[in-house]
């Protein structure tokens, strides 16, 4: 039997106008993977947050950079990989806000990483072959 590729990749300019394309795709991919509508919506928001962070923080708004997204179907999960060559984020630097505290002292940002970790089963940041990667996993029952 031949190995059949079960993934697809999307490469977009680092511009927020393309966010909808990526989230739309992530939603459809989630449905293909067998996740239900509500979970698919959450996955697409997690992808939105991760890509927005690359555009805003890693590339600091430089519209001439590229973001690459790969969606992989593995037997028990949907794996999402997001690559960029901007400023990386180390996993041990990530501090998630406590929603209880946040509610007491509202401020403008800082919810993206929290939503990613709440909506996905695993979120990792690492460096792969000169690029920075954010990998998110959602298990399929």
């Amino acid at each position, binding site marked *: 039997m031949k190995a059949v590729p079960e993934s697809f990749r999307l490469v977009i300019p680092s511009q*927020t106008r393309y966010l909808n394309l990526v989230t739309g795709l992530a939603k459809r991919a989630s449905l293909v993977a067998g996740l239900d509508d509500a979970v698919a919506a959450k996955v697409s928001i997690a992808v939105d947050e991760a890509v927005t962070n690359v555009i805003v923080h890693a590339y600091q708004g430089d519209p001439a950079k590229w973001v690459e997204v790969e969606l992989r179907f593995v037997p028990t999960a949907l794996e999402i990989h997001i690559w960029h060559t901007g400023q990386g984020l180390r996993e041990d630097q990530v501090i998630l806000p406590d929603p209880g505290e946040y509610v007491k002292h509202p*401020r*403008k940002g800082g919810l993206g990483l929290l939503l990613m970790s709440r*909506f996905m089963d695993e979120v990792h940041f690492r460096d792969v072959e000169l690029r920075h990667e954010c990998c998110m996993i959602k298990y399929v029952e």
Partner: protein
Amino acid sequence: MADLSIQVREADDLAVLAPDGFINAHTVRQFESALEDLVKAGKFTILLDCERLNYISSAGLGAIMGLIETVRENRGDILLCSLQENVFAIFDTLGFTQLYRVFANETEARKALAESAE
């Protein structure tokens, strides 16, 4: 592409802001401006009618967060109504249903406001 359009209705002491479409990092400035315009005009009690809001990311939550203290300091509030399931999921996941009053529809929101004004 019109990812987001916003309708603003004002009646009595309540300003109703109804976003239609997607609020993400791309469209959030438009949403934020609409909110800020109300606050600048002295409208501190704002109902976000989310019936046609299909999507909101943390960028959109940030815009609301950035104004909640100002409106409350002015004895106003930001209320939410008619949330679609996935929009509700975000508020709920973050525990924001404690921070904001969420109503089934505009009528319920107005009723609650009338009661608290008594």
